[in-house]
């Protein structure tokens, strides 16, 4: 169906917004799936989310409408932004009225805007959390490349497996204070392991 010239025409000329939003969304999605670098993945994630926001904002557009803030003549408190020459009481001589349907067309639809304010904030919250995860991963494994990370996790898993099998063999029925000691010991053990391990990847 996409061979049909008119549809492409329609997409590129009349609905460029919808087309570009799809393109941006796909760019973001591809980056999230295929990029190796974790930060790149996150940038892709942000692009993905902003593309969706672009879509929502496009829904709210009305041809020939203004922003969703009441014009002075519809302002519930009288003319707010235009200073009036008359005295104070005139501020309230037209109270709030329900706009009739012909005037409703003059304002953009506020609902998508509100939804997207929420979505932007959710996006930045996710980004912050993900960056914290990246730092934690870097502290633990010294890399933010996915393939290197997987390799390192695997090698560490094999090591921990041999450790975990050894532990139950010398069971000593730990008491409460012994338990703590054991914990700190195992922590220090793992620390020496990670410290004694040379860091070859940095030089590459």
């Amino acid at each position, binding site marked *: 169906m*996409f061979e049909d010239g008119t*549809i492409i025409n*329609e*997409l590129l000329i*009349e*609905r460029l*917004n*919808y*087309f570009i939003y*799809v393109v941006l*969304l*796909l760019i973001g*999605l*591809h980056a999230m*799936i*295929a990029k190796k670098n974790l930060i790149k993945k996150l940038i892709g994630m942000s692009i993905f989310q902003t593309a969706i926001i672009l879509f929502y904002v496009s*829904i*709210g*557009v*009305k*041809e020939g*409408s203004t*922003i*969703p*803030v*009441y014009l002075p003549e*519809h*302002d*519930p*408190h009288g003319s*707010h*932004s235009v200073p009036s020459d008359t005295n104070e009481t005139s501020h309230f001589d037209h109270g*709030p*009225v*329900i*706009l*009739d*349907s012909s*005037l*409703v*067309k003059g*304002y953009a*639809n*506020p*609902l*998508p*805007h*509100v939804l997207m*304010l*929420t979505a932007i*904030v*959710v996006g930045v*919250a996710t980004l*912050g*959390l993900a960056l*914290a*995860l990246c*730092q*934690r991963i870097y*502290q633990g494994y010294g890399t933010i490349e996915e393939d290197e990370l997987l390799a390192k996790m695997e090698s560490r898993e094999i090591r921990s497996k041999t450790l975990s099998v050894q532990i139950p063999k010398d069971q000593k029925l730990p008491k409460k204070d012994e338990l703590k000691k054991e914990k700190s010991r195992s922590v220090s053990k793992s620390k020496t392991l990670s410290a004694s391990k040379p860091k070859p990847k940095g030089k590459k």
Partner: protein
Amino acid sequence: MKLLSYIPVLVVGVLLLYAAKDFPEWGSPDAPASKSPVSSHFIANTGVDTEVPNMVTAVLADYRGFDTMFETVVVFIAGMAVLAILKNSGRKKLVKREFEVDAEPDLIVTNTVRLLVPVIQIFAFYVLAHGHVSPGGGFQGGVLMGASFILVALSWDLETALIRFPLNWTTILGGLGIFLYAGIGLLSMFLGGEFLDYSELANIFPVSREMARYHAMLGVEIGVGLTVTAIMFSLYANLSTEGRLQRGL
């Protein structure tokens, strides 16, 4: 493998473009989303219901105030989670970073910032308080406020900023913001309405039911602003130091 990653992308792309030809006409006032009773109600009746000229603020803080409460909670969660992830996690000794510059705070920069910060903060207050009438509101004001502290941290160092805004305060302020928001909702529930039904506040304040909504929205936005200010600064402080809170950028 490289090619494999294109398959889901292509599938999604075809799916989305397939639907695009079915969309209502671009920018048409007769599109279902634009002429639905909900949207027209927001445009036509916001003035009557809440006396707020900026419809976006009214919808955000009142009509869909429940959403916004959880949006604030999401920001709060991000702050708490970053703290939880990075606290006591890191290498104890400071590792020299790849691009570290040891320099005293620059005189020109610090003096400019000294002039700039009050202006930013006043603008933040303006954005927060004027959100009923012009674009702006709690989020934007809060982010600007948080940014002013980040600016201090960037131009001097993080310790200087943390003297002015200790990290424990960010948690307390963040919590207080949500407490304020949900507290206003709870108060209006105790006064006989539903949760977040601000108009019931007219029972204890000498204003009309509509103006009660108007003023409660300001209170709610202040709550949002508090949380966002605190958490944005806390995010920066934690992320720039891997949770150690010494030697930021």
